[in-house]
């Protein structure tokens, strides 16, 4: 049974007096531990699919099942709990909370879960060390570079040990070198911790890092292929 199963999913958004079909009868299955990319041009439905998989939105038709749970059903509260415990998000523009420092940002989901402060701090220290941002715990997001902010965002997504991490164009705002470093890092986490990654991108360099490339066009599946990982540049 796949970890993520989209069955004949359609998502329609109202846009003024018109309706826009962002995802059109999409059927897709992603297994646990995969490192997949949703590739396609702008407007192809990448972000909509990530939102549906992450329980941020509900499908207009069809079903989205994650780890045996239909995210289209259940109350807003139940969906929030699902996101809190099963999903980690990484956003294109990092979306760290500006008034919190790096450590507080990273432990935010643990705080929402009610994990005691000392336990949280231990986990964050470990993650920061793993992500190469030790020593930046007390810095505010505004005092961090884009790459550092995205590493904090990865730490936040990883902190609660979710079933799947969804990353929406995670390197779009970063330079090539930082992007490569982060991709290597995510791939290492995928390999070592068996965390499932699904990210969206239209950048060929990013796509080249994925094991599975799911190409979308106009909300429909264009192609679904597996590729060998680039041997070079693996994270240390």
């Amino acid at each position, binding site marked *: 049974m796949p970890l993520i199963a989209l069955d004949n999913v359609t998502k329609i958004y109202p846009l003024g007096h018109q309706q826009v079909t962002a995802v059109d009868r999409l059927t897709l299955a992603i297994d646990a531990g995969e490192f997949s990319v949703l590739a396609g041009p702008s407007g192809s439905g990448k972000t909509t699919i990530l939102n549906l998989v992450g329980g*941020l939105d509900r499908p207009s038709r069809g079903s989205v099942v994650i780890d045996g749970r239909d995210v289209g059903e259940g109350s807003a*509260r139940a969906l929030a709990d699902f*996101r809190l415990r099963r999903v980690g998000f990484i956003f294109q523009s990092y979306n760290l909370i500006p008034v919190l420092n790096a450590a507080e940002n990273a432990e935010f989901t643990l705080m929402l879960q009610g994990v005691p402060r000392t336990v949280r701090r231990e986990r964050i220290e470990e993650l920061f060390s793993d992500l190469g941002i030790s020593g930046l715990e007390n810095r505010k997001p505004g005092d961090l570079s884009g790459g550092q902010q995205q590493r904090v965002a990865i730490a*936040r997504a990883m902190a609660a040990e979710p079933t799947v991490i969804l990353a929406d164009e995670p390197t779009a705002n970063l330079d090539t070198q930082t992007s490569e470093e982060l991709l290597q890092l995510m791939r290492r986490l995928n390999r070592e911790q068996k965390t499932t990654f699904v990210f969206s991108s239209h950048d060929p360099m990013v796509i080249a890092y994925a094991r599975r490339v799911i190409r979308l066009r106009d909300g429909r599946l264009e192609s679904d292929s597996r590729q060998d990982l680039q041997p070079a540049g693996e994270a240390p």
Partner: protein
Amino acid sequence: MEFLHLAWKNLWRNRRRTLITLAAISLSVMLTQASHNLSFGVYAQMIDSGVRAGSGHLTVYRGDYARSRKEELSFDPGTLVEAIAAIDGVARVLPRVYLPALAQSSRESRGVLVTGVDPQAEAGINPFLKKIIAGEMIGSSDGRDALLGSRLLKELKISIGSKFVVTLQGPEGDLLSELLRVRGAVETGIKDLDGSLVMIGRQRAAAMAGIPGRVHELAVILQGRAEEERVRPLLDALLPPGGEVRVLSWEEAMPNLANAIKLDYASQRVIFIIIMLIVTIGVVNTLLMSVMERIREFGVILALGATPGRLRRMVLAEALVLGLVAMTLGTILGAALTWYLVEHGIDLRSLISESLEFGGVVFDPVMRAAWDLGYMLRIALYVLALSLLASLYPARKAARIAPAEAMRHV
């Protein structure tokens, strides 16, 4: 606790806006508390002055004397004065006789109110006796000496030591006259009183009116206003059954003063409501702006797994922190201003040349505040409650954000 910490941080995102809101709320609290304390102090002084010079905290009258002022409504106090004085909490009992009369000097005549008092009992209690501007207080209860209002003295064109005649109607309707001598003059500041007061010994007054040993009023001065509730039933129990002689509170005996104070407090309440409305608008504005600026961030927080209820509580926590800081700061400022007004007061003497009356009592031109801690606490709690109330709409708005839509928000 962590949410309060986060709320504190969020509150200072826009430092200037928060400071302006805090300043507006704190100053409102300060002004409301201090202005109330000033009124509280001034009224306390006026009530004190009113009850001492007038009818006491509690008064014993016969029938409806308080309203009708009919001379025939006198009564024999018997041993009441001693019995009332023995009640714990009673500072003094002042028996008084009031007689409308005509005062005549060799050159003028005026309508007056002869007030018969026990000079020893009144000493140290009656504030008018501190305002003797010429001569001295009468010495005995049965002498012919009189203390006159300063204006009356001038209008009768007499001076200290002069003799004058007082004529009044006896119980049978016959005219009775008495020759009196001016012992002193008093300037109470109350125009009507200064033009009509003739204070003589009570026994002399009762004798000349043909009602020896009887009084019109027993003014009961308590050790404090707080004693009123406790003492009143004890005093009631001492009165003869039948209810002809009865006890009135100062509010009932001096309705002019009580109503004037009530009216002023009512107008203060209107101002208070306006101030609180401004506070509410300030809080709503600050929190709503803060919510609208953070739509995208709220979307992220929801995406991370916060429930809408949690988001609502986050906004409420910000209002709670804002309210707590404002009420604390406002109360500190209110206490500081009250302290100044208690210690130094506001001296109106340079602004007001004549003394002012309020509800039939002289208004002290140096207005001093008094502490009303219960009121200060109430205002502080109102502000806190109002801050929370004002945050309900912004909190509701935050809780209704759809996460996917919010994250597209720029």
